[in-house]
């Protein structure tokens, strides 16, 4: 295996763990944790491809990862604010119980 492939395997496994978490956990915060893990895996992919890719002189991989980190921060902030808002309203963070469209 080339080094690139090794890093890709790591990031794939990380993505898989995040996906499993997002799909199986019922606590909204843990679903968000799973999503964060998937984003991190994607970032690892970007960096690995930048490092071992055909176009190493361009900083695109690094810049893309920086933007992804910023977007992840924004996403988490709004996501957690939504979860807290829903919790105040419904007294639950269990996703199975957030099934009513009517407030």
């Amino acid at each position, binding site marked *: 295996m080339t080094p690139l492939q090794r*890093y890709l395997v790591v990031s794939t496994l990380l993505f898989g763990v995040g996906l499993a978490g997002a*799909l199986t956990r019922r606590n909204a915060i843990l679903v968000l*944790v799973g999503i*964060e*893990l998937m984003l991190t895996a994607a970032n690892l992919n970007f960096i690995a491809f930048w490092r071992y890719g055909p176009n190493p002189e361009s900083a695109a991989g*690094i810049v893309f990862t920086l933007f992804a*980190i910023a977007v992840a921060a924004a996403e988490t902030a709004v996501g957690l604010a939504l*979860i807290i*808002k829903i919790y105040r309203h419904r007294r639950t963070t*269990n996703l199975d119980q957030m099934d009513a469209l009517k407030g």
Partner: protein
Amino acid sequence: MDPAAIIAALLALGGAVAAVSLRNLIHCALCLVLTFFSVAALFLGLGAEFVSFAQVMVYVGAIAILIVFASLMTRDPGTDPARAHEPRAIRPWPLGLGIAGAVTGVLLACVGSSRLLPDVATPATAPSVRELGQELMTRYVVALEVVGLLLTAAMIGAVVLAVREPRRPDQEVGR
């Protein structure tokens, strides 16, 4: 991958598994911190210094703390006893694991079988911080501005969502 990178990768995966499988939310958040640190170490090993530090600063310093705060401010009382008897349409555990496993398997097969580029002789050297700044302010300046706008909007949105409206005195009197 040198031994340090392998250790970091194992720590990242172990932390990730713990973060999505432990019962205690706080433990999950702390394991997530471990994962973020290890991924930052992987970035460092790949020569992306700047991204690694930014990762620690944003993920550990901000996102993990946010998750911890949110877990402290919400308490999951478990399944509501009044709704416990309701049959659930699907059993989430096996299905979710199956889907995740299938996706991971397909991805792994792709990584293993695709004809990736041969190992490059000289891996990329990281651009200096100055070059990175130049790139951000010239080629990616629109994206940078949009991200700034997004972060501002997200901050205001989060505050508006999470703020508890103070009870006004006139309402107090009426009650």
